[in-house]
């Protein structure tokens, strides 16, 4: 017999429609950003987040009440939501921004997510999102959201074990020194690292079924959030081209070249 009424878990997975991983990034001619007229797809780290949410449900079965995905983006982002629904999410929220609007900043995204979470009838227990987006590599949204909500957070997760009865998650993080194990009380924000799992392929039948799943459309204004950028990008340039190395004939020449380059053997 199960102990009485464990409240069921609600998982929220924010995802981003980002430049596809295989695209060769080019700086645009005005040097204000990158060329966005390229193939886009779901941020790979967010795919891993969706996969993890689905796996948590596969492990915990009925203890998970809902998996909701949310994205903040132009109309085309609806395709990304469809893919997430095809992977196993139940419902989606599309915070639509105009096609011409600048991409929202991490703080703006975090504020929008906060407004969305507070709006939910069923309180959110776990938020899983990618550690960073592969097109801007900011890596800030998860942390900022945790700060705004005052919730526990575990970033760069490489292993997640959810205990719905204790209302904690045991999370292994990848850090510089190795691996760190945390136990976080719900509600918790988890950001995913590459080695957490291998996302499933969204098969064609599942994509068709996903068309029937509910997608709620909202605007940032309805959530009371201003997505105007607070940062101004002054210039974007490509990294300097790699200059080839040169070969030297002997040690004397090496020393001469080093001296020329300003590298001296002076004691500190």
């Amino acid at each position: 017999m199960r102990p009485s009424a464990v409240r069921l878990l609600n998982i929220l997975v924010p995802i981003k429609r980002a430049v596809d991983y295989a695209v060769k990034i080019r700086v645009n001619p005005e040097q204000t950003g990158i060329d966005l007229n390229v193939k886009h797809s779901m941020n790979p780290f967010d795919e891993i987040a969706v996969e993890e949410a689905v796996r948590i449900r596969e492990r915990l079965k009925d203890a998970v009440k809902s998996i909701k995905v949310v994205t903040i983006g132009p109309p085309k982002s609806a395709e990304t939501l469809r893919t997430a629904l095809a992977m196993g999410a139940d419902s989606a929220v599309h915070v639509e921004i105009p096609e011409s609007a600048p991409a929202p900043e991490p703080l703006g995204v975090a504020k929008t997510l906060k407004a969305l979470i507070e709006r939910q009838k069923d309180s959110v227990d776990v938020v899983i999102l990618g550690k960073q987006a592969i097109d801007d590599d900011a890596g800030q949204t998860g942390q900022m959201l945790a700060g705004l909500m005052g919730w526990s957070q575990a970033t760069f997760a490489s292993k997640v074990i959810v205990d719905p009865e204790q209302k904690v998650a045991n999370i292994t993080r990848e850090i510089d020194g190795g691996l760190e194990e945390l136990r976080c009380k719900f509600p918790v924000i988890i950001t995913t690292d590459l080695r957490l799992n291998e996302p499933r392929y969204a098969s064609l039948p599942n994509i068709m079924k996903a068309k029937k799943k509910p997608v709620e459309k909202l605007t940032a204004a309805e959530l009371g959030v201003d997505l105007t950028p607070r940062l101004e990008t002054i210039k974007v340039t490509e990294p300097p081209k790699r200059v080839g190395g040169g070969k030297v004939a002997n040690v004397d020449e090496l020393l001469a070249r080093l001296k020329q380059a300003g590298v001296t053997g002076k004691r500190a």
Partner: protein
Amino acid sequence: MASKATRLRALALYKELHRLGRDYEPSYDFHGKLRRLFEKNRNLSDDEEIEKALRFGEYIKNETLALYSLRKYRHLKRMYPSNSVSDT
């Protein structure tokens, strides 16, 4: 074709493989090969042979999926290397 059921399976398999082929190396002509292989088997009537052909199609689908996964994982691993000291 032997039955409506196998016809539906073959169609579903073809559609799925066709969609997968979109991301394949263009010079390999995945779509062309796909069509030719399916057309070669269009007049099969023996259940065993049909089953074998469908299984082969599933095998190709899984192999292609594995290739895509590997390509993506390798690419991401290079872009985001694991920290030097950790054992992952």
